[in-house]
């Protein structure tokens, strides 16, 4: 058994496998399938200060090796989370992080303040990259100025680990990563979904009610890997890589590109126990290649 532990700023993870926001509910939905406490951590569903109904149905389109979604941050709001959901999560013996979103900087702040009060929440992932909401979301993540505004504002009210989640829908992700680091991010996670679209040729209508949606799954892995590698060169904070990870080999590729931990997203839908298989597979890889610890391969792509 290799040493799989890793760190994201002050967070100690027993292993580098987290779950991606929006793909793992609150963990509870997986209790039938696996022991959530075995994971390095979970990032719960995107949370906003006010309850949100999300977008109209249909919200999903299958694509080649991937899927589009346009859920639009449906959630019952930070207060409901704190009173009704959070108490159920304290049973988990692992890091629980909350993905925080908002339409205005004030909303981000208000949401982060509520989460800041919850002892058992190890950190937040600041979602400035949701492509499925009309206001805020991704628009905060596509320019250095707006990144600086929202990240530094939340930094003031949130003391624990703050990961900033970047959008891939940009010309130069390295530059935006530097803006987030400079504004106080303890870590960066990437990538959120790529803006895409599906059309039903028979009905001649968009498949999604919102016309466009976010692309996830193995289709985007090459883009995600490239961006992790670019951002790793641009910043010094630890990175959490994701985008199309389906198995341990995919995860290893992200570590080599420079990620200190990874998140598994869409793959959870297809195999709800995939995270445990990935943890095992990473261990096998390290043993087979005679590495004692995960940190031996982080960022160790041989050029």
């Amino acid at each position, binding site marked *: 058994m290799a040493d799989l532990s890793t760190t994201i700023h002050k967070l100690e993870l027993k292993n580098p496998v987290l779950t991606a926001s*929006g*793909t*793992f*509910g609150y963990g509870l*939905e*997986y209790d*039938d*399938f696996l022991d959530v406490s075995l994971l390095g951590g979970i990032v719960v*569903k995107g949370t906003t200060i006010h309850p949100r*109904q*999300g977008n109209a*149905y*249909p*919200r*999903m*389109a*299958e*694509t*080649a*090796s*991937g*899927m589009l*979604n346009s*859920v639009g941050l*449906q959630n019952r709001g930070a207060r409901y989370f704190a009173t009704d959901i959070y108490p159920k999560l304290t049973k988990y013996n692992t890091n629980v992080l909350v993905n925080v979103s908002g339409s205005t900087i004030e909303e981000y702040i208000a949401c982060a303040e509520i989460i800041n009060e919850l002892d058992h929440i190890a950190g937040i992932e600041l979602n400035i990259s949701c492509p499925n909401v009309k206001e805020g979301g991704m628009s905060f993540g596509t320019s250095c100025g707006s990144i600086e505004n929202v990240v530094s504002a939340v930094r003031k009210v949130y003391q624990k680990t703050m990961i900033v989640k970047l959008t891939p829908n940009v010309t130069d992700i390295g530059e935006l990563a530097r803006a987030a680091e400079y504004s106080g991010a303890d870590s960066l996670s990437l990538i959120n979904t790529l803006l895409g679209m599906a059309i039903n040729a028979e009905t001649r209508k968009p498949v999604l009610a919102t016309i466009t949606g976010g692309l996830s*799954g193995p289709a985007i892995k090459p883009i995600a890997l490239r961006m992790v590698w670019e951002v790793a060169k641009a910043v010094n904070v630890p990175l959490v890589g994701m985008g199309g990870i389906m198995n341990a080999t995919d995860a290893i590729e992200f570590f080599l590109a420079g990620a200190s931990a990874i998140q598994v997203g*869409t793959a*959870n*839908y*297809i*195999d*709800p*126990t995939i995270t445990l298989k990935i943890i095992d597979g990473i261990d096998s890889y390290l043993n087979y290649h005679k590495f004692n610890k995960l940190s031996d391969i982080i960022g160790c792509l041989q050029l």
Partner: protein
Amino acid sequence: MRKTVQNLKVIENLQLNDDHHLLQLEVPDQLETIFPGQFANLLVNHSPGVFLRRPFSIYSVDYIKNTISVFIKEIGEGTRALGQTPVNSYINSMFPLGNSFTIPNEPEKILLVGGGSGVASLMNLAQELNKNLNDVYILIGARSSADLVELEHFSQYGTVYTTTEDGTQGEKGYVTNHSILRDQFGQFKRIYSCGPEPMMRAVAAKAKSQSVFCEVSLENTMACGFGVCLCCVTETIEGHKCVCTDGPVFNINQLKWQI
């Protein structure tokens, strides 16, 4: 029973007609109760065009043989691959998922209305209702007589009526025009329906106008099947609800259908 993911062995694959298959799947673990209306989410192997699982109602359960059956209508790459799964190979299955139809406490006179692959979720229901001594009537519509499959199976559990669009069997026309809905509707205490949405809406409108209890089973597109992706929502009086966990069965009074 709690949700599981298991490799189920195909022990029978009955081709019902050109594009309908009935697969009997052997469950390695001891089955616990599966309720009528619940579904399974099946993994499709060897299909480059299929990425996500595919949901199918649990058509019937055999607790003695420890099997579940699914009824598959081939409409695309995923259903074609699954429908043609050879006997003795395995299908990775996530089940049982979703809620179920409400079974009355006392025997009642009940009508089931199904169309297309929607009939699949009614078989397990018909069986259960019959076991509880309800007086069950089953109305099934199809394009043509060739698409009316499993009628014998249904008739073990109730009285079967049919419609076909081309008139090759039963009454000619849409299921929603069947005389039983016109002439005898008032006699039914409950209506359960599953099939194309326009059909269910028509049935629901009829039920609503006469204040008859009515449940429908929805088939929204799904990514996960167990309540985490929030892709499968339908509008209800309490806001968006997931068809995969709050449904697939909804009382029509919960839905925001304009009927």
